[in-house]
């Protein structure tokens, strides 16, 4: 566990989204997994994500969007991270990203095209994102 300590993750819920429950659980789970978690909470703007990542020298930004406006809210985030020199920071996004029950493959493509490294369908369990961070940073599993 302790070896995850040197990976820091910025966590937040983007836009005008107030869904706080999943954020709280993700925070708890990522913390338990040993990552350093910087949780900017709900209703976070793109700027708040970027600033938090700069300040904490983050490795990953985990964006949640539950309320359906994810598509509008996430546009331009990748460009802003690049502008801010955070090219190496991984960008993950998950939740209920679009309005309505839509074909996940389509939605995933949309977010990958927006510049996200990984996108997750509704109801993804925290363990999946933990595993992926470990994979992306090649941390051997016990």
């Amino acid at each position, binding site marked *: 566990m302790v070896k995850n300590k040197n990976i820091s993750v910025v966590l937040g819920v983007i836009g*005008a989204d107030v*869904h706080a429950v999943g954020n709280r659980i993700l925070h708890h789970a990522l913390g338990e997994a040993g990552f350093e978690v910087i949780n900017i909470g709900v209703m976070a703007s793109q700027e708040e994500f970027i600033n938090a990542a700069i300040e904490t020298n983050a490795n990953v930004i985990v964006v949640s969007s539950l309320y359906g406006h994810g598509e509008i809210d996430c546009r331009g985030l990748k460009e802003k991270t690049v502008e801010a020199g955070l090219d190496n920071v991984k960008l993950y996004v998950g939740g209920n990203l679009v309005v309505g029950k839509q074909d996940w493959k389509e939605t995933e493509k949309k977010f990958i095209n927006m510049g996200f490294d990984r996108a997750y369908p*509704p109801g993804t369990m925290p363990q999946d994102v933990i595993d992926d961070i470990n994979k992306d940073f090649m941390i051997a599993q016990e």
Partner: protein
Amino acid sequence: METDLAKEKIDWEQFNQQRQEVLQAWPTGQEVDLDEAVEYHKKLAPYRRFPELLKSAEEEGRTLAQPRAGVALVQEQIELLQYLEKEGEADCLPTTIDSYTRQNRYSEAQKGIDESRMEGRSMLNGFPALNHGVSACREVIESLEVPVQVRHGTPDARLLAEVTVAGGFTSFEGGGISYNIPYAKNVPLERSLAHWQYIDRLIGYYQEQGITINREPFGPLTGTLVPPCISHSIGIIESLLAAQQGVKSLTLGYGQCGNLYQDVAAIITLKELAREYLDEYGYKDVELSTVFHQWMGGFPQDENKAFGVIGWGAATAALAKATKVIVKTPHEAMGVPTKEANAAGIKATRQTLNMLKDQSLPESAELQQEKEIIIKEVRMILDRVIEFGEGNLALGSARAFQAGILDVPFAPSRMNYGKLLPARDNNGAVRMLDFGNLPFNKEVIDFHKEKIADRGRKEGREPSFQMVIDDIYAIGKGMLVGRPR
């Protein structure tokens, strides 16, 4: 800031000053003409009026089914609601407002409208009624044969209320606490309470002109393991505040927890306690009704399992004899439902309500116990809130939140104390694992502790945050109590 909180009905002159400013916030504010709106309502057919429908349902002891629904564009919203009325057999309808409007981000809502027009699908999670304006709202109302309510989650809904009530909506959901604590992060309670006093005063004005508009505090709050005493206390506070401003038709809400006895006790005590407090404060002429929300937390992704949750919610609502039930859909876990999925939820609910129309849950020791504990808890909380207010209930509420006398689990708001931790007992009733600063006596505290300890013993584990997490996931994973895996 605190001084803005009225302790009695706001003076009309004073109200009007504020009003001019409110109507400036977006061009559609200029469309609102109060006198004309009153005339409009006077001509509105009675079957399009919420207060009348609620009153008759309450008298007949039947339970109305109401969906949630909102899309970006007017014509689409009309089609959606007509479908839910005809095909879905809804007894009354909603117009759910989009999240940008809720945060007063009207230009983003406008962007959403424009993009929706271009993409040919709704890019907003609700209907931006304020952007569409008064006559668009009336178009919606007149296209339907049943009453329509504004449902949202807006800390500052003053302009939204002005536009939609002038636009012919006859019920308006929300309140200074219930539409702040679960729906905002940084809005001071003093501010949202004052803004909702404005809304209630506006509706009090309509009432003075003989037009009753129904008001509904938002019962479920964060929708996630909220103990009845919390939502009851907040609902009663908001009812008193609304009555203070002249509101005469009130519907109190509660979000299903899942244990039959607790849920039925909750609906019964909600009405009893509200009546008691309103009478005590001299608001004997306020009409009361109740609304039961089918489980408001995380849903199972499987649509058939979702039907299981919906059916149980409908059955509980019917057995509790709630006046109204707010219906979930088989798409709940995935996204805003299609109109078909929405109608599906209503129809499954209607069948259940009809089958249980002539049944109720009679008295039993278990029901009695649940009722008693809720009544005790609510009294302890409300007494302290009232005390804190020193004659100003709104003020008392703001202070109570600061002190943790009132606390909503999992709320995003910084104004919330945030120490209260709920967990289910061994029968699935929602109890408290951590009371934060709730003003309970030893008897109540011991009751909860013993209930949760009992579950812990049966599960062979110490009660902890893991239990809470397990409970949060439980219904989504097809259970009620989150047992250790």
